[in-house]
């Protein structure tokens, strides 16, 4: 196995990759250059290994670089230093193998629900009958069958994010990136979306990298939680969630859940204190 792309700038040359398919983020730094010439360090040397078929969650305070990290993995931005490798191959630009559900609503408003879900399949020239079959399956899985002819304008926020999830999944990506997909929803809708996502994930077991600032959400959904520091974002701790699957929303009351929550709260509390000094 070899690294496809020459090392980028910086003192962190590509290391030979350990065997086994997974996402690997190695010593990634990201600096935003402002127009004024000043630069903002958004991410400071993060290294994360996301094992295959795991639901990995990143939690951290607002502005700590969570979205930036997902954009890097998606290939929509380039790290200033460091490497991102998927199955040992360096990420070089966006691609259908890394599907993404965005924080903002990004459905194509001129397409119906069905056509939105079909978009990636069409770009990848999947034959019509197969498209039809796949789209119908994911519309059913996400409870959208009755809305397949609706335009995004006619949908609620929760419905739109359902479509976004179905659209990403229908494309059968290698890994699914989710950037606070339920962040803008009211708490009831959010709960029902978490339930839906649990169901869908337990059915497909796709590798997921999920970003949130909601600790309950992180524990409920995640197999593994990466806690980030305030800006510049660093990895503070990696927590394996010891709660069995299938998961349900009642589990938030169980002692294991509360123990993990206490731990994360503690980590983040320190983070806020650090910030104040």
């Amino acid at each position, binding site marked *: 196995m070899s690294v496809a792309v020459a090392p980028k700038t910086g003192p962190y040359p590509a290391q030979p990759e350990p065997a086994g398919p997974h996402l690997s983020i190695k010593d990634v730094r990201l600096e935003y250059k402002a127009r004024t010439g000043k630069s903002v360090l958004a991410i400071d040397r993060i290294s994360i290994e996301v094992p295959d078929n795991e639901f990995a969650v990143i939690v951290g305070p607002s502005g700590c670089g969570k979205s930036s990290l997902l*954009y890097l993995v*998606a*290939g*929509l931005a380039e790290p200033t230093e460091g490497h991102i490798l998927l199955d040992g191959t360096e990420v070089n*630009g*966006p*691609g*259908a193998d*890394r*599907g*993404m559900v*965005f924080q*903002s609503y*990004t459905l*194509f*408003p*001129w*397409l119906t629900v069905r056509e939105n879900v079909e*978009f*990636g399949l069409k*770009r*990848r020239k999947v034959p019509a009958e197969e498209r039809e079959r796949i789209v119908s399956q994911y519309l059913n899985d996400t409870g959208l069958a009755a809305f397949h002819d609706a*335009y*995004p*304008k006619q949908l609620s926020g929760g419905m739109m994010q359902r479509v*976004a999830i179905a*659209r*990403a999944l229908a*494309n059968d*990506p290698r890994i699914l*990136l989710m950037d606070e997909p339920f962040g803008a929803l009211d708490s009831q809708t959010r709960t029902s979306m978490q339930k839906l996502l649990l169901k869908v994930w337990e059915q497909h077991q796709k590798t997921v990298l999920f970003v949130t600032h909601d600790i309950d959400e992180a524990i409920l959904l995640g197999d593994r939680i990466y806690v980030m520091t305030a800006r510049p974002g660093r990895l503070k701790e990696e927590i394996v969630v010891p709660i069995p699957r299938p998961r349900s929303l009642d589990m938030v009351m169980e002692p294991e859940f509360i123990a993990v929550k206490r731990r994360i709260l503690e980590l983040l509390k320190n983070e806020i204190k650090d910030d104040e000094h």
Partner: protein
Amino acid sequence: MARKTSLLDQCLTPKAEIPTALKFTVSAVTWVAVIGVWSILTYGGFMQDIFLPSPTQVTDAFFRLLDDGTLGQHIWASVQVVVTGFVISSIVAVPLGLLMGTFKVVQAALEPLVNFIRYLPVTSFVPLFILWIGIGIEQRIMVIIFGTFFQQLVMIADVSRSVPKDLLNASYTLGASRRDALLHVLTPAALPGIIDTLRVTMGWAWTYLVVAELVAASSGLGYISMKAMRGFQVDVIFLAIAIIGLLGLLTDLVFRLFRMRLVAWAN
């Protein structure tokens, strides 16, 4: 306790909807008021008809020119000039504007020049156009193009710039190429804005008609109003102005219907 908002409240609340019947009534009242004031000024003898013709004088002029067959000819001549100029301008401005709003290189190359040119007075180019392309219909079309093209370019570029970047990003993560993103995301996303721009600039194209037919024209609504000016036929001037206005209104309506049909998803 159930409280019903009064009609007055509805009218005075910012951005609140009002009943359709009221909308039409108010619009009609405005027209009646304008024509009413016009009638009082003219029939009441407050203004001489060499300055302001009465409504009947204008309708008389309308039937006079209709009967001798010249009105249709002039309208056709003007429609040809405006529509041809507008179509040529739009065919180039829409794709170029999209590129200008999408690619920073194109923007850097064109924007300074375009922003310079679009503030130049069209009128002062008329003699140059006559010098360069003669006094045929091409010269008149050129005036319309010059008047609309640069405005269109800037407005279409803005439309394309306002397409959210995450819409393109989403398409990339679904496997779209840059070409796909341009054709299947940016262009449809910009379509409502493009149609709105065309609607507005079509209105401007009509306003350039008189400039286009100012000199060296031998037919057209602008031409007859210039000719009427020399003969102090104020009624004909009014007639020409009214027809230009009505044609503008008509094209506006066509664009509105077009938008409702074509981009229903945006309403």
